C-alpha cells in the first residue's frame, strides 16, 4: 500500500473512532438524536457559511501552487528576520524537553489530535439547538484559511528544521517519514508564517472557552489538545515561535470577526 494511502486510512480510522466516543461522552445521546432528526434543516440553515468555507478551501487547493510561485518571485524573504527575532528558541525547546515519549506524543497530536480537534466542534455545535455557534465556527475557519493564504503569499520563509538542521531535528519526519506523504500533499515547506495549525487550534480552543456552558467537558479537553498542537508545531521543528504568535493573533482576530459577521439569532 502506498505510504499516503496507509496514513490516510489510519487517520480516518483513529479520528473516526475518537469522534464516535467523544460524541457520546460530550454531546450526549439525546442531543445526537435531536441532531439526527433535524440534520437536513440545520445544514440548510448554515448553508452560507458552509459554502463560504468550501469556496475558500477549493480556492486554496487550486490557487496554492500559483500563489506559491508568486510568493517565490515577489514574496518577502523573511527567514533571516524571523531567525534574528527569536534566535534559537526552537532549538532550545527541543534540546531541553526532547525525549522519545514526547516525540511520539507530539507527533500523534500534530496529525491525529489536530484533525480530531477541528472536526469535533463542527459536530458538537451543529448539535446545539441554535446554529449561531456553528456558523461562527465555520466563518472563523474560513477566515483563518483565507487570511493565512494571503500571508503565506506575502511572506516567503522556511521553518527551523529547514534552516538549522544542525540544531533542530525534523522530529516528525525523522521518526515518521510516512507522515511526510500526507503533509506534503497539503502543505508547502515555505508556508510557515503564520502557523495554520496554531491558528485553527487556538480558534477551536477559544470557541471551547466561549461555549463552556454548553459543553463543560469539552473546554478542558480542547484547551489541552490546542495547547499540545501549538507546542507540537515548535517541538517538532516545523514552526518558529514567531509563526505561533502570528497564528494566535490570526485566530483571535478570526474569532472576533466571526462574532461580528454572524449575529445572535
Amino acid at each position, binding site marked *: *500500500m*502506498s*505510504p499516503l494511502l496507509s496514513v490516510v486510512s489510519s487517520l480516518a480510522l483513529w479520528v473516526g473512532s475518537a469522534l464516535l466516543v467523544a460524541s457520546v461522552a460530550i454531546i450526549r445521546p439525546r442531543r445526537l438524536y435531536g441532531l439526527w432528526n433535524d440534520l437536513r434543516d440545520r445544514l440548510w440553515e448554515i448553508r452560507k457559511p458552509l459554502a463560504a468555507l468550501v469556496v475558500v478551501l477549493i480556492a486554496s487547493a487550486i490557487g496554492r*501552487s500559483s500563489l506559491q510561485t508568486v510568493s*517565490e518571485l515577489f514574496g518577502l*524573504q523573511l*527567514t*533571516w528576520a524571523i*531567525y*534574528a527575532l527569536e534566535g534559537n528558541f526552537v532549538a532550545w525547546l527541543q534540546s531541553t524537553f526532547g525525549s522519545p515519549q514526547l516525540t511520539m506524543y507530539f507527533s500523534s497530536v500534530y496529525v491525529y489530535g489536530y484533525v480530531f480537534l477541528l472536526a469535533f466542534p463542527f459536530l458538537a455545535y451543529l448539535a446545539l439547538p441554535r446554529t449561531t455557534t456553528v456558523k461562527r465556527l465555520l466563518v472563523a475557519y474560513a477566515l483563518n484559511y483565507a487570511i493565512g493564504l494571503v500571508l503565506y503569499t506575502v511572506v516567503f*520563509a*522556511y521553518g527551523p*528544521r*529547514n*534552516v*538549522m*538542521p*544542525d540544531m533542530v*531535528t*525534523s522530529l516528525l*519526519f*525523522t521518526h515518521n*517519514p*510516512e507522515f*511526510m*506523504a500526507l*503533509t*506534503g500533499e497539503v502543505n508547502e*515547506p*515555505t508556508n510557515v508564517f503564520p502557523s495554520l495549525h496554531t491558528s485553527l487550534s487556538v480558534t477551536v480552543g477559544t470557541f471551547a472557552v466561549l461555549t463552556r456552558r454548553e459543553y463543560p467537558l469539552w473546554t478542558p479537553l480542547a484547551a489541552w489538545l490546542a495547547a499540545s498542537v501549538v507546542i507540537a508545531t515548535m517541538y517538532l521543528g516545523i514552526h518558529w515561535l514567531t509563526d505561533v504568535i502570528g497564528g494566535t493573533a490570526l485566530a483571535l482576530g478570526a474569532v472576533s470577526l466571526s462574532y461580528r459577521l454572524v449575529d445572535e439569532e
Partner: protein
Amino acid sequence: MARHVSRRETLAGVGIAALSAGCLDRTRNIAGRDRSSQLTLEINAPPADRDPNAIRIARHLAENLNAVGIDARINTLGLTDLRRKVLINHNFDVYVGQFREAEPFDPDAMYAFTHSQFVAESGWQNPFGFTDINGTDELLASQRRTGGDERREAVEDLQRTLCELQPFTVVAFPDPLTAVREDRFENWTNRQPLSVGGLLGVERVDAGDGDADGTGTESGDGTAAGDNETTAGDNETTAGDDETTAGDDETTAGDNETTTSDNETTANGLIGDNPFTDSGDEEGDSATLRLVTTDERITQNWNPIAAEYRRYGTFTSLLYDRLALVEDGEIIPWLAAGWERVGDSGIEVSLRDVDWHDGKPVTAEDVAFTYEFLQDTSMGTTESPVPTPTFRGRVSAVDEATAVDEMTVRLTLDGVNDAVGVRALQVPILPKHIWEERTDVATIAGFEVDAETTEAVVTNNEDPIGSGPVRFVEASPEESVAFERNPDHFLVRADDGDDSTGDAMDPLAGIPERFRGKPAFDRLEIEVMGSDIAAVQAVGDGFADATVSNLGPDAVPRIGREADARLVTGRSGGFYHVGYNTRRAPLSNPRFRGVLASLIDKRSLVDIAFDGYAEAAASPLAAAPEWVPSDLQWGDGETDPVHPFVGEPGSLDAETARDRLREAGYRFDEEGRLIAPGA
C-alpha cells in the same frame, strides 16, 4: 551590502541645530559623510529538505561570521530560485552550492567558471564576477592550448592562483551516496551509480528473483548484496508469473501496488526478441526502475541548457545524446561513430544512424546547428549574442561547425588541445527543427521583458524531443516524471540487428559491452520526496529502487537499518563551495575573501555535515588528484594548505580572525562589529 541611514535623514535631524549654531560648513563636513554601520552578508542556501548538506555549511559559516562581528543572515531558497538569484541575476552576497560536474572533470571546467570574459553573461559562467586579468585568464587560456608538461604547469599555477584569490572557497567533495535495493535491478556501479553510464549499466535481476515490491522479502536473500543467485524458493507468486517466456529474461510481476505502469511499445517487433531487455508485453511494474529524489526540478523542466533547473544534467543526458560520453576517464563515441583530427584545428565527426524521438533522422545539419545555437541562442537576431547558460566553456572551444555531408560534421576548434576538444564533444545535440523556433526574444503575453533572453533559455521544453536512450512519457510537476526506454535508440536497434562478429561495419563500434541493448528498464520513474529521510525510507520500504539526490547525516545511518537498502558510494566532481559575489565590496577584496575562507572549518564540516562521507579539499580539481600539486593537496586530516582554519578543529579563534581582518585594513566598533567599508 551595507545599510546606511540616508544623508538626507541625517541632515534633517541635525539641520536646525546646525543652522542656529551657524557652523554650517563644519556640519556639512560631518553630515556629508556616510555613517558607518555593521557589515551585513547574506548567505543563500537551499533548505534542508532539498539539500541537507549545503544548509549545514551555510550555518557553520554564518555562526563563525557572527563570531567575528559580521552580521550574517541565512536566506533559504528553493533550488530554482537560488540558481536564478545567483547565476542569472547575480543578486547575492554569498551562496553555498555544488559544482555542476557529477564526475571528476578535466581542468578546463574552470575555464567558463572563472574566466573574466564571461562576467557579463548569465549562467554557470563566472557567477562571481571574478576578474584577474594578470594571472587567471592567462593560465586558463594557456592550459587550453598547451599539452604535456606545459599544460600541467599551467594547471598547477591556475590552482595556486584560484586558491590564493578565492573567488569561491572549495569546502569538500561529497561522496555520491545512494541507497539502492537490489532485488529488482542489480549491477549498480560503485563509482557513479546515478550517472548516465551508471543507469545504463544497471541490469534486471533474473527471473524468480524479482520479488517486485519487496513487500514479502524473506530474511534470506534480501540483504545479500548484488549477486544473489536465482533462488527457486520465492517463486510462489500468484498472477503474472505464468508468462515466463523464452529463456531467462523474465521477472515476475509480483503484486504491484504501485501505479500501474505501462503499455510498452515492444509490440513493434524491433526489439521483440531481445534477450537482454525485452519484457514481453505482459506485466508492467517489474521492468520499471523507480527512483526517488528531493529535487523537484526534473518534474518541471527538461531544457538541457537551463541553468536554474539542471543539477548534473543526468536525465537530460539520457534524453539528449552527446557526441561523446566520458565514463571514468574512458572516452566512448556515442552519437558520433568516430572522429578524426583534420589539419591543425579541425575534427571530422561521423554520426551514427539514429532518429529523433519524433522519428525524424539526426543529421550533420542538427549537430552544426547545435554548436552555432549554443554560441548564440538568438542565431544573430539580437544586438549582442545570447549564449547558452550552460556548456559555455565547451562550446567556446569550437570556432565553427559545418555539415560536410548528411552524416559528417566538421568542427573547427579554437586551437585547443585534445582534452578540451573531447569536452567540446560533450554537449547535448539538439534537433534543429524544434530549437530553431526558439531563437526569438522571450516574451510574457507578447511583451519583451529582457532583450538578453531568448525563448530557448527560458522554455521548460515540454515534450522534449531528443535522440537519447530514454523518451519522455509524462510528468506531474513537483510530484513525478516518467520516461520510457527508446526502442529505436542505437544501443537497442543495432544490438538487435545482428550479433555476428565479422561484420565490416559494426553499428556499435566503440560501445562497451555493458551498454549494448540497454537500458535494462522499460520505464524510468522519478518521484519527488519531501526529504532525504523520506527518500531513504521509500527505498527501504520497497517503493523505490534508488535515491538520486544528496543524503544528509540524518539519512545515511538509516540505510544501515533498512534491511533491503544498501549504501553505494563513489567519487564525485560536484564539490560544495562557498561562492562570493566579487562585484560587491568588501567581497571584491581577495584579502577579505581569504579571511572568510579561513573561517570555514572544512575538516569538522566533513564530519558534521557529511557524516564523514566527503573529502575536504583546497583545490577545485581535487577529484582528479593527478592534477593537484603537492603544495595544494589535503593530507590526512590536516588543515587547509592555503587558508588554514583559524582555531582548533571545532572551535574558532575569533580574536585571531579579527586580527587578520584588521591586518587586511578592516575596522571594528567598540562592540566588536565589523564596520562596513564605504560602498
